[in-house]
């Protein structure tokens, strides 16, 4: 997994909380910085993809590892 500036553990949270927490964390970050989100909600895979497409933030990586979902989002 590439470098990141901030991490958000959304494990155990269900829709739409992982997205809402990620959005809130990104708001406090600078453009170009990378957020690493960890989630357990299987729905979050499609949701983070859709979130990136609609907000213009780049989803650099999306993968499952050890039963958890990891996302790297670069703030636009």
């Amino acid at each position, binding site marked *: 997994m590439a470098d990141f500036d901030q991490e958000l553990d959304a494990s155990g949270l*269900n829709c739409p909380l992982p997205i809402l927490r990620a959005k809130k964390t990104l708001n406090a970050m600078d453009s170009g910085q990378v957020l690493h989100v960890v989630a357990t909600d299987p729905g979050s895979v499609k949701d983070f993809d859709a979130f990136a497409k609609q907000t213009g933030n780049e989803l650099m990586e999306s993968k499952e590892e050890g039963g958890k979902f990891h996302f790297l989002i670069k703030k636009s």
Partner: protein
Amino acid sequence: MEDKKLAIIATKGSLDWAYPPFILASTASALGYETQIFFTFYGLQLLKKKLALEVTPLGNPGMPMPMGMDKWFPVLGLALPGMQGMMTAMMKKKMKDKGVASVEELRELCQEAEVKLIACQMTVDLFDMDHSEFIEGVEYAGAAAFFEFAGESDICLYI
């Protein structure tokens, strides 16, 4: 590019139906939508300072019942006193166990995200409700005000 707009009418005042308007509005805000929810009739319950929302199995054949209760308790059983309170407690516990946000939490997230919450003044009067019963930040208006925003919206939902 101008922000997209989402207009929602929330008409139901039960625990289960409290979720769709608040989930969709908070998510839309996170995606950059400007969002308004217009609360009318039983939807006004969702704006009360102290939420007392319940869920009922009555008239709801789609509701999954624990331990096959729907087979053991036909319709009359579901109407027994205490059944609604029990179903509400079970539903709340299930939601907590599954990491589903509470209605209060989602409502706060909507307010943080500047979702505009509008109460229908006509139904507030109809039910003899008082503005002091509702949370801070609620605006009061009528159908014409709703159309001013809804007419410009990209998505309009009646829930």
